[in-house]
């Protein structure tokens, strides 16, 4: 289909405001009489609170002090299971758990006051890993330390082993990862006796905050208003946590009668807020003599931290993606999310899929090596094709272009020549080279029946200024929500991009289009914008104000005529499921997602065995995401995701001590800088999805899934050592390459030769 506005790289809607410093983020806002809040947190991992004391030298009468007893409604951060308190009452279950809140007019007075609150505890045993949690020596949550388990099964796995020519096992693990949005979490709350409660904040999901505040305060929903401020990065890190922050600021505002601002500094943000779930995946795979996957038994475990929060849904996405883009006649995934005494792990771009896909794609290389096939050839023999079924028995009806993308990736990287060349080079050089593949898919939208439950509502209205504006709760935090939704509306109605703007995200005016997560905004919300736009046009035609053939000028004039006649012109549409979408929550089978994005990533690395550091020399990212709505924004999503994936693989290590992150600074938690990023070559294939706007599918999370396995596969090829855990830091490579016991002889020799040659 020829498009005019969609597919064109128009200027980002809020771009000029961001570039001139005029965009207003939460810490840029101020209200008259506003005071500042701070949080007193647990210093232990688990135990009973025995006494709270207020030390000397602090003018306590100047402070507003809030404890759990000040909570008017329920002491929970309402999300899925409602097990997480807003403020600890009696017990603490993780370090940094909020216990008490302080507010003062001078923000500089807060740090000393927080330090002067003395809490005495009776410590209880705590656990800090999946292994400790599954041993159940100490039960810290529910009956068995398990937040959620899934069993996903297709075919007859137990019968398949007897036909196998090969049986290959492996265990893989991934670490926690900090979202590290550059703007820390922050919120302002104002409580008025007549105006109710108003929240401004940096957030992804204003209606999650709204729901949490209804439970916390007992106020009717219409008395609570949540407004998104410009949001400086999120990546999932502002999906559920802002509800906690808003709850805290609200309690202080209600007690003090003054607006309260809470802005976390970087150290508090890193120590106290959510991170990506650490994981452990065990694979046992049956392979036929001709290199076909026959069966998989996969055990997928995540560390959820101390409260359930989003662990069940993260586990779900990880489970469904555990089989990757391959055809499995038989597959069984047993998945469990475990409780530990660390701050709850939460949403982070990819949402469980980067974990299980890292394991799978490392395992695919491991199998290929074991059975003597090249990594590309082994993958090729097992890729899903149109008409085949996924691990959830979903038939993929759209064309799948994985084979073509694999070919193109091999071609773009000169893969086969490089593999040969590197093998020769590595015999003599202390700079070992490798090239690795990651092949994967990512489902767009909420899993299974999720989108039906969300039942997103989207609006469009004619403005007094003569244009249109889009009404959604879908937030902009860098990905391009504002821009692409305006493009879709303009395209649908024959308007110019500049004719359409975004209404502020404000629960008092925005319809609930659901949370801004799960790669759902372009595909799901974009589609509803399109429907609402068509409906608006039909309304104008039906009212006799617009000829069916009317163009842009006629349409805009008709909008104004309608406004004059009827006061306002609005059009609302709801989510409509694509036909033939069925999902069985019990059996975990059916159409897990409306559509998948598909990708092949390639990383070329150098491992310097003098410094044991890894340099990425080239990175190629090919993906099929349906129609590309905005080429520049789409490439930016991929490049940014790849950079985060590079950090996940090679740099970003959360160092834990008794459940607390102890490297909670940008100085010692290392993310990629401008000097670390390789050339990232991005290519799109476009297979339009029938039920996405102009054929678009989801994109946001996809690029987080592939870099880590591609990079580690390359490092393994370069060094000959099977690295199966990320992050993989130079010290890990050093330890593995200098360790005494069993190691492939070849790598030992080359390592020694290289050392001798220095």
């Amino acid at each position: 289909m020829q498009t005019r506005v969609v597919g064109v790289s128009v200027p980002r809607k809020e771009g000029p405001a961001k570039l001139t410093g005029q965009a207003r983020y939460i810490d840029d806002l101020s209200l008259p009489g506003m005071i500042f809040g701070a949080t007193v947190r647990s210093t232990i991992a688990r135990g009973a609170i025995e006494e709270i004391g207020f030390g000397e030298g602090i003018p306590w009468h100047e402070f507003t002090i809030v404890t759990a007893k000040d909570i008017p409604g329920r002491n929970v951060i309402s999300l899925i299971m409602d097990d997480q308190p807003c403020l600890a009452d009696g017990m603490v279950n993780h370090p940094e758990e909020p216990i008490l809140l302080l507010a003062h007019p001078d923000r500089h007075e807060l740090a000393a006051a927080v330090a002067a609150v003395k809490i005495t505890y009776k410590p209880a045993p705590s656990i800090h890993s999946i292994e400790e949690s599954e041993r159940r020596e100490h039960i810290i949550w529910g009956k068995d330390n398990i937040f959620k388990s899934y069993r996903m099964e297709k075919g007859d796995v137990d019968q398949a082993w007897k036909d196998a020519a090969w049986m290959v096992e492996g265990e893989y693990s991934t670490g926690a990862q900090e979202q590290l949005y550059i703007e820390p979490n922050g919120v302002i709350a104002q409580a008025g006796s007549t105006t109710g409660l108003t929240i401004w904040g940096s957030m992804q999901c204003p209606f999650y905050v709204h729901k949490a505040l209804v439970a916390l305060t007992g106020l009717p929903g219409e008395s609570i208003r949540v407004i998104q401020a410009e949001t400086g990065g999120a990546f999932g890190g502002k999906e559920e946590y802002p509800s906690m922050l808003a709850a805290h600021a609200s309690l202080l505002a209600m007690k003090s009668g003054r607006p309260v601002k809470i802005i976390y500094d970087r150290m508090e943000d890193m120590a106290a807020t959510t991170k990506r779930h650490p994981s452990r995946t065990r694979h046992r795979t049956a392979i036929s003599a001709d290199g076909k996957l026959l069966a998989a038994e996969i055990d997928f475990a995540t560390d959820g931290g101390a409260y359930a929060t989003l662990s069940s849904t993260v586990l779900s996405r990880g489970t469904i993606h555990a089989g990757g883009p391959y055809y499995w006649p038989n597959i069984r995934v047993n998945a469990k999310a475990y409780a530990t005494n660390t701050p709850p792990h939460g949403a982070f771009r990819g949402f469980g899929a980067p974990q299980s896909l890292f394991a799978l794609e490392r395992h695919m290389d491991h199998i290929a090596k074991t059975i003597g096939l090249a990594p590309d050839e082994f993958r090729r023999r097992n890729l899903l094709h149109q008409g085949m079924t996924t691990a959830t028995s979903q038939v993929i009806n759209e064309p799948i272009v994985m084979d073509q993308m694999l070919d193109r990736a091999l071609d773009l990287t000169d893969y086969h020549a490089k593999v040969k060349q590197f093998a020769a080079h590595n015999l003599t050089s202390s700079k070992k080279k490798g090239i690795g593949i990651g092949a994967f898919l990512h489902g767009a939208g909420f899993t299974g029946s999720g989108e039906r439950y969300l039942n997103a509502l989207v609006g469009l209205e004619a403005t007094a200024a003569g244009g249109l504006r889009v009404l959604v709760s879908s937030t902009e935090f860098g990905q391009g929500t504002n821009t692409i939704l305006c493009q879709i509306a303009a395209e649908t109605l024959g308007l110019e991009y500049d004719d359409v703007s975004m209404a502020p995200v404000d629960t008092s005016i925005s319809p609930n289009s659901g949370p801004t997560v799960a790669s759902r905004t372009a595909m799901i919300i974009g589609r509803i914008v399109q429907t609402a736009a068509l409906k608006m046009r039909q309304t104008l035609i039906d009212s006799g104000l617009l000829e069916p053939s009317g163009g842009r000028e006629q349409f805009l004039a008709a909008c104004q005529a309608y406004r004059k006649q009827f006061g306002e012109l609005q059009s609302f549409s709801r989510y409509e499921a694509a036909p033939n979408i069925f999902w069985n929550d019990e059996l975990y089978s059916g159409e897990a997602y409306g559509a998948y994005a598909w990708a092949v990533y390639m990383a070329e690395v150098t491992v310097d065995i003098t410094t044991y550091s890894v340099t990425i020399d080239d990175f190629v990212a090919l993906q099929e995401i349906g129609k590309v709505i905005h080429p520049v924004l789409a490439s930016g999503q991929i490049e940014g995701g790849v950079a985060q994936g590079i950090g996940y693989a090679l740099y970003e290590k959360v160092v834990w001590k008794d459940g607390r992150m102890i490297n909670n600074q940008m100085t010692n938690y290392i993310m990629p800088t401008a000097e670390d990023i390789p050339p990232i070559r991005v290519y799109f294939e476009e297979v339009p999805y029938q039920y996405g706007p102009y054929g678009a599918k989801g994109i946001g999370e996809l690029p987080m899934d592939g870099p880590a396995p591609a990079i580690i596969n390359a490092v393994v090829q370069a060094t000959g050592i099977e690295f199966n855990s990320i992050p993989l830091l130079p010290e890990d490579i050093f330890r593995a390459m200098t360790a005494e016991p069993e190691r492939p002889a070849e790598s030992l020799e080359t390592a020694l030769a290289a050392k001798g040659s220095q």
Partner: protein
Amino acid sequence: MSKRDVSLTVNGTAYTVSVYPMERLLDVLRAKIGLTGTKEGCGEGECGSCSVLMNGELVNSCLVPVLQAEGATLCTIEGLAGENGLHPVQQAFLKCGGAQCGICTPGMVMATVHLLNNNPKPTLEQIREGLGGNLCRCTGYTRIFDAVAAAAGTRR
């Protein structure tokens, strides 16, 4: 500690502010002068979001005690766009997709202006080095490099 007056020039306007001597330049710019375009990302000089030009040099304003800025001439993100619209660096960032969430953007733009002031035709390696003190979590830097190169082209 008692407050004292400090005079400085920001974006061409002279200010005298009453401050604690060790107050951070960042806080004075944001809270006292009301220029909130300069952002705080880490408070320890790692992320570069608070970058401003002080007497033509790029500084992390979170690390500068305001006394050090006595008599200084400062340029912040608000001082770049002129009557004719966006500064060429801002235009290039807009066109190339160099800004996503926007929180690192003011610092990144200031670092770019500083780089191009000192090296109008930087190589890619020089761009990487020039922006090495400014962290961006959204873009993967690629489009920022494009923007710097594009801005360098327009400055001929």
